[in-house]
């Protein structure tokens, strides 16, 4: 199981290393979102600083939708998914490997976004540990959720339009809890930052449990 997951993880990252879609297309798109938000709020520094936590997760959400779509597009082309099934790989291992690879890509996007917030929005970080733990837990939760939805919509003719409609509202728990934890880490709120991070962990465990149970049906039907 873990060996299969490792194989898929390496395969996806190898494809990404060769194509460089995350670095050359998704990261610039996410940074563009930060710039566009600055235009929308008339470059009001205090307003942008106050909303920086939310903007991070919104940017990651859009980047994640693009990443999840691409992660399964490469499997839909040329019947790769059928080949994986015929190869006897465990469905849970396939999803696990793909989710881990997507989490790594999202981590790259998240790092670029934090750098963008520090430079463009002049935010300061009060609690780096909380920021990193919340970012890692939330990114992992979102990667699992996005992978499940990517598998759910793979091969559908309307997948391009359907995936954001399905994924964005259902990822609301990650967006809400992540934003609250980031607000505390960035010094914008005196809330219980670690409680929100714990909620992110609960959401992550729930998504993993659902993914584990649903991997077989999802990949068999894909």
């Amino acid at each position: 199981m873990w060996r299969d997951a490792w194989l898929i993880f390496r395969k996806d990252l190898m494809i990404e290393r060769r194509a460089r879609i995350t670095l050359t297309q998704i990261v610039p798109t996410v940074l563009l979102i930060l710039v566009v938000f600055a235009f929308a709020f008339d470059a009001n520094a205090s307003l942008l600083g106050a909303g920086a936590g939310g903007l991070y997760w919104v940017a990651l959400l859009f980047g994640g939708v693009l990443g999840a779509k691409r992660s399964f597009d490469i499997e839909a082309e040329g019947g790769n998914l059928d080949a994986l099934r015929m190869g006897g790989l465990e469905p849970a291992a396939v999803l696990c490997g793909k989710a881990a690879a997507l989490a790594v890509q999202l981590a790259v996007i998240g790092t670029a976004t934090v750098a963008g917030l520090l430079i463009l929005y002049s935010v300061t970080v009060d609690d780096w540990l909380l920021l990193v733990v919340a970012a890692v837990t939330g990114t992992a939760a979102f990667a699992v959720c996005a992978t499940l939805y990517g598998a759910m919509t793979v091969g559908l003719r309307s997948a391009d339009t359907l995936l954001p409609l399905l994924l964005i509202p259902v990822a609301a728990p990650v967006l809400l809890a992540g934003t609250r934890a980031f607000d505390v880490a960035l010094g914008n709120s005196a809330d219980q930052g670690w409680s929100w991070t714990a909620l992110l962990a609960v959401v992550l465990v729930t998504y993993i449990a659902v993914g584990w149970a649903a991997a077989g049906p999802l990949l068999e039907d894909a």
Partner: protein
Amino acid sequence: MPATAAEPDLRSSKNSPSPIAGAAMTGTIATRVLGVVALAAAVVMALLALWVSPPERVQGDAVRFMYLHLPSIWVAYGAFVLTAAASARLLWLSRATSPSGRAERSIRRLDRTAGAASELGVLFTALTLVTGSLWGNLTWGTYWQWDARLTTTVLLFVTYLGYLALRRLPAEPRQRARRAAVMALIAVVNLPIVHYSVNWWRTLHQEASLSLTSDREITGEMYWTLMYSLAAVTVIALWLGVHRYRVLRLEDLAEEDAIAHLLQERRAESADRVRSDESAVTR
């Protein structure tokens, strides 16, 4: 899918009229009684909520929205939980590569239950949003606030609209049912967030009016009217759910009927072709 007494075999309907016509008459005495009870419950609820229950000290008559607003969201919660429970069972039964005929029928029934319950949930969430918006306009002076409870409820609504969109995509029924079931299990995670949002965030929306653990804020006639409204809206939702389930079953039968009809036509065509070939050879 193998035929049963409850779900007639459409493939054996060669020379008889479509069984859909017969299946459409599926009303039982119980469901008709339920319909009458639901109608009577709605009338009594209107009387209690509009006349018997007194106006509230601060909100005045605006509080009467509560008798529809609260039961609507409770029914929506119940419907979404039922959707998730049916979906979990469906996924459990569909683990086998080729389920038995009985399991296959159960899967179809669970899929219809999840479909009917989710539609009810969406309907009652919409009703909650509309009544909440009207109530908010009277008490807060605005139809909409970017408040945690309101925003999370809208997200819940959009999540299940997406679920219904997924259900409507053309696909093989078993595949569609399993994909929808996975989504139902993920979507239900949003329910506790909507419910506890008033405790987790500072919101304009009031905290829970009724609680099992603390003293209730509503008492007397208002409390009993609210309890009655909850029961009445639940009965109405049950009645709507039963009928929606039936329509979904009829849609399934119609789909199977159409396939059976097409197969029959193809068989008749090939039989004609064989006959004409044989007569050509004889000549």
